[in-house]
């Protein structure tokens, strides 16, 4: 084998691959990403937001199973497959947990499930409610791997669907922060002088307001909801990106290749985008990984306070908010599972960030 000179990118990649925890975390993130995109495929409860409630069987332990009668919905749905996969099934059927049933010639008689030793209500319905009059197909034993939440929804499905918000807020917030941050940082660093002073002032002002409170203020101004949180988080995180980009550009500006580009008469735009930015991307990438983690933390916090994603949307933070009272009622897992999810995803992003920092040789 002849010696090949590798580019900086290849060197960094080689270094990254050697970092076990970095690679492991990246795989984990990829896995969570896949789960969040295909959440409704994996989720046992594929109704929209995994919101199929069965109040009779609320807060059951993990692994709980019950016979479930499904009454087909009378409404026609004209949802295409793609929509169903991405956004969950709408117009869902009614599900009734039952303790016993028997089928006559014409009717189905069932006893509704009732917990705490209570007698369930007995009901009789005609078999004609079911397609082909075949009722037994609509009674299945349903197992709830993670148990059910306080509305009797499948916790596993909620956790899977909840991954989406955490994951996408990271993407959107990092994207917004990159667009604004790189732009502001570049012009501040490159042009200096008054432009720099004004941008630094904006940065300092944003910096002085604690992120959480600024996000709260922006969400109050824009209204509750998850898109607002996306934008609010992005609008607060650009500051760090801008500071780093500005600092880097100031030190790169005096490099000979920039002087050379200037001597060749290239436009400022071309010099910044083609010559400077590609050379200072490393710290920006590292900061983005940290921002990704920070965005997930902030979103979960906002949802915990009830100003993030609004019900019935599933979000890990909101799930903890709903269930942390159950922690002393002997059902701590209801709050622990979503909490551990947030923790592991945030930790994965931090470890990837650390691995990238080592691989790209950025001083932290």
């Amino acid at each position, binding site marked *: 084998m002849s010696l090949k000179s590798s580019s900086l990118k290849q060197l960094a990649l080689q270094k990254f691959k050697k970092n076990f925890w970095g690679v492991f975390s990246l795989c984990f993130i990829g896995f969570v990403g896949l789960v969040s995109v295909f959440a409704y495929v994996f989720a046992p409860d594929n109704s929209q937001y995994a919101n199929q409630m069965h109040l009779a069987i609320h807060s059951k332990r993990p692994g709980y199973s019950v016979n479930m009668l499904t009454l087909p919905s009378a409404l026609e749905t004209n949802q295409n497959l793609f929509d169903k996969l991405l956004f969950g099934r709408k117009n869902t059927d009614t599900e009734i947990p039952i303790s016993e049933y028997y089928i006559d010639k014409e009717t189905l008689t069932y006893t509704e499930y009732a917990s705490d030793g209570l007698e369930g209500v007995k009901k009789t319905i005609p078999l004609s409610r079911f397609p082909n009059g075949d009722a037994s197909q609509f009674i299945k034993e349903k197992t709830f791997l993670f148990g059910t939440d306080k509305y009797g929804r499948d916790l596993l499905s909620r956790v899977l669907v909840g991954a989406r918000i955490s994951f996408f807020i990271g993407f959107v917030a990092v994207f917004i922060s990159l667009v604004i941050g790189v732009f502001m940082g570049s012009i501040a660093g490159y042009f200096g002088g008054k432009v720099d002073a004004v941008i630094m*002032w*904006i940065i300092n002002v944003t910096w002085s307001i604690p*992120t959480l409170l600024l996000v709260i203020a*922006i969400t*109050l101004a824009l209204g509750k909801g998850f898109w607002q949180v996306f934008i609010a988080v992005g609008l607060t995180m650009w500051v760090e990106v801008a500071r780093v980009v500005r600092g880097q550009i100031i030190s790169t500006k005096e490099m000979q290749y920039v002087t050379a580009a200037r001597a060749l008469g290239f436009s400022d735009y071309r010099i910044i985008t083609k010559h400077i930015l590609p050379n200072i991307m490393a710290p920006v990438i590292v900061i983005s990984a940290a921002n990704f983690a920070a965005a997930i933390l902030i979103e979960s916090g906002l949802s*915990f306070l009830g100003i993030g994603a609004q019900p019935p949307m599933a979000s890990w933070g909101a799930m*903890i908010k709903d269930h942390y009272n159950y922690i002393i009622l002997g059902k*701590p897992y209801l709050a622990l599972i979503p909490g551990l999810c947030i923790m592991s995803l*945030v930790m994965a992003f931090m470890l990837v960030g650390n691995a990238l920092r080592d691989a790209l040789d950025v001083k932290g």
Partner: protein
Amino acid sequence: MSYLINKIAYAILTLFGVVTVIFFLFNVLPGDPAQMMLGQNEDSEQLATVKQKYGFDKPLSTQYFYYLNDLLPISFHSNQAEDYTFLRAGKYVASPLFTIGNTTTVLKLPYLRESFTKQGKKVSQVLGETLPNTFVLAVSAILIAIMLGVILGIVSALYKDQWLDKSIQIFSTLGMSVPSFFSAILFAWFFGFVLHKYTHLEMTGSLHELDDFGEAMHIKWKNLILPAVVLGIRPLAVVIQLMRNSLLEVFNQDYIRTARAKGLSEFQIIKKHAVKNALNPVVTAISGWFASMLAGAVFVEYIFGWNGLGKEIVNALNTLDLPVIMGAVLVIAVLFVMINILVDLIYVWLDPKVKLK
């Protein structure tokens, strides 16, 4: 000296920006603030009175100047009783300086307006009651973080890449990844409920609690332990990392080699030469952390029922008590800016190499 004056001037400019941002963020709200204050049972007459009293009937730019006027220590006030800026007794704590025509110029404490929901209680009073509690909490948390963090950071650096270092690293990364509300829930549950028999700690509780007879307020330091530890986790994690990395860097310096050559013991080297030089980045980081901890205390105070600024913010959020939120954000921003100036000074003291520019 001129360095300090420059710093303070810039700080004031920054705070002006903060005030502007806060004012406009809270005034583009979709709802009508006068209606928010009165709740459901308002009539149009009351609505008009409230609007006039708080200046909501004026254009936004006028309201903005009123807001600035309320906040400035030196402000201008009309002599006409129906004007918003009239020096009403009990509204401002002010001493008049001089009067020109219809306007009086006064020296006063910044006026943060009145709470929407607490029957016109002054925001400054609300903050004055809660801020000390948060301050106690934040200072305890920072002390825990610095003391444990510096020690663990030194241990980590000394045993670099050995299992002790690796476990401390894992602990530190973990500490940075846990949302503070989640760690608060975990700690309250585990130490206040599961291990209650052994720890005798309560799940919730504030610094000042009524005694069993409901007569007098008592200070309960016991209640400080859990919230302070939880609030300290994240800064602790950061301090460990910073201390370890900066100590490793210091170990490569010439003066450490000289100290070793002199035959000083390892303990002496660390104590006398390494730690003080490695502390700089820690101090800088703490400055950034202190103010964000006042904000981060939101979750911790909420879960532990600690009567501080954070719990007040959550309450105000639920009742849409905007003046309280605005006041809280402003106070934290002022503290942040002041701490930054202070830290710059400490930095100079710690590291004479940093020149005063």
